[in-house]
């Protein structure tokens, strides 16, 4: 036996190995049983403790370590909360900025729309009047038409179209042999006006005694004025780009009140 366990056993070593082997040999003595029970207890406790250590780190820590851990967690929470507050305010700033930017964008779009309608660049619709000028007799002069146009403008007309010509601030009306010429387009009677504006203002302004329509009728023309809830001014005109005029820098805010 000892030869198998230790190939070249000197005497004392052989004694040690023999003692070990004799102790390990299974004999149902009291000492062996006690040793077995104690070793079983040891193995059980060892495994239980190892599992406990692996299962839950916190329960094996001492009070000091737990306090330190708690402290660290609290500090970490504090710093994270500060970070969250900072990020939240940053987000609020960004949202506000986006809001004001969107408001500016909306205002700009609205302005662009209004100015597009004013400049004749955009089609428009709304309440207004439809005016048809016929000339059963002599030609209606351009002056008469300009009178009508001025009357409409005075009455607050916002978009005006004669036949297919959009009338803008730079529109002109010329006499020709058999009609008029508006912005380079020759027109003949009847002239169909589509006007967007307040009908309650436009109609009295046009029908005013001695006013524009009275002048037309006095010159032998026929007038047919009807109020419409929905007028579509769909003739558009691309305004010429400015060659010379450029936008002036806006004056400082404090000097604007002076």
């Amino acid at each position, binding site marked *: 036996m000892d030869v198998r366990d230790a190939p070249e056993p*000197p005497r*004392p*070593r052989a004694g*040690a*190995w023999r*003692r*070990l082997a004799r*102790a*390990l*040999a*299974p004999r*149902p*003595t*009291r*000492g*062996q*049983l*006690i*040793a*077995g*029970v*104690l*070793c*079983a*207890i*040891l*193995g*059980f*406790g*060892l*495994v*239980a*403790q190892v*599992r*406990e*250590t692996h299962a839950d780190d916190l*329960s*094996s820590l*001492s*009070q*000091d*370590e737990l306090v330190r851990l708690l402290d660290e967690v609290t500090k970490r929470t504090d710093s994270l909360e500060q970070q969250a507050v900072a990020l939240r305010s940053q987000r609020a700033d960004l949202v506000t900025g986006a809001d004001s930017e969107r408001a500016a964008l909306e205002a700009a779009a609205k302005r662009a729309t209004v100015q597009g309608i004013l400049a004749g660049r955009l089609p428009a619709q709304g309440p207004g009047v439809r005016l048809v000028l016929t000339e059963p007799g002599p030609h209606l002069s351009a002056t008469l038409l300009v009178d009508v146009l001025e009357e409409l403008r005075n009455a607050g007309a916002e978009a005006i179209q004669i036949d297919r010509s959009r009338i803008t601030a730079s529109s002109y009306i010329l006499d020709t042999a058999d009609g008029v010429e508006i912005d380079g387009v020759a027109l003949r009677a009847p002239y169909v006006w589509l006007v967007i504006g307040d009908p309650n203002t436009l109609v009295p302004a046009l029908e005013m005694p001695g006013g524009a329509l009275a002048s037309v009728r006095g010159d032998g023309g026929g007038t047919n004025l009807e109020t419409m809830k929905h007028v579509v001014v769909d003739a558009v005109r691309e305004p010429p780009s400015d060659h010379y005029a450029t936008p002036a820098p806006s004056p400082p805010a404090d000097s604007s009140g002076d």
Partner: protein
Amino acid sequence: MIAVIGLLLGALAGIFLEPSVPTVLQPYLPIAVVAALDALFGALRAILDGTFDDRVFLVSFLSNVLVAALIVFLGDQLGVGSQLSTAVVVVLGIRIFSNAAAIRRHLFKA
């Protein structure tokens, strides 16, 4: 042999029963395990010395465990639990090392 079988049986029981250490015992179990290990090595050394006695083994095993637990308990009460635990582990570790060295000298003459 019975001791080795007992150790394996205990370990297997611990693995398959998955015991949860009671909270009361949690501070003492690791130290108790180390103390029992020390007693085990001491017994091994006694076997090789030819002076093994089962009664001594039983008493030393139990007293080691109890004294270690008592020291930890006392340390906890005094507020120096972790330091005293460390001290116990160091002492037991030294004893385990010296026992292991004696066993090694017995078995290998080195």
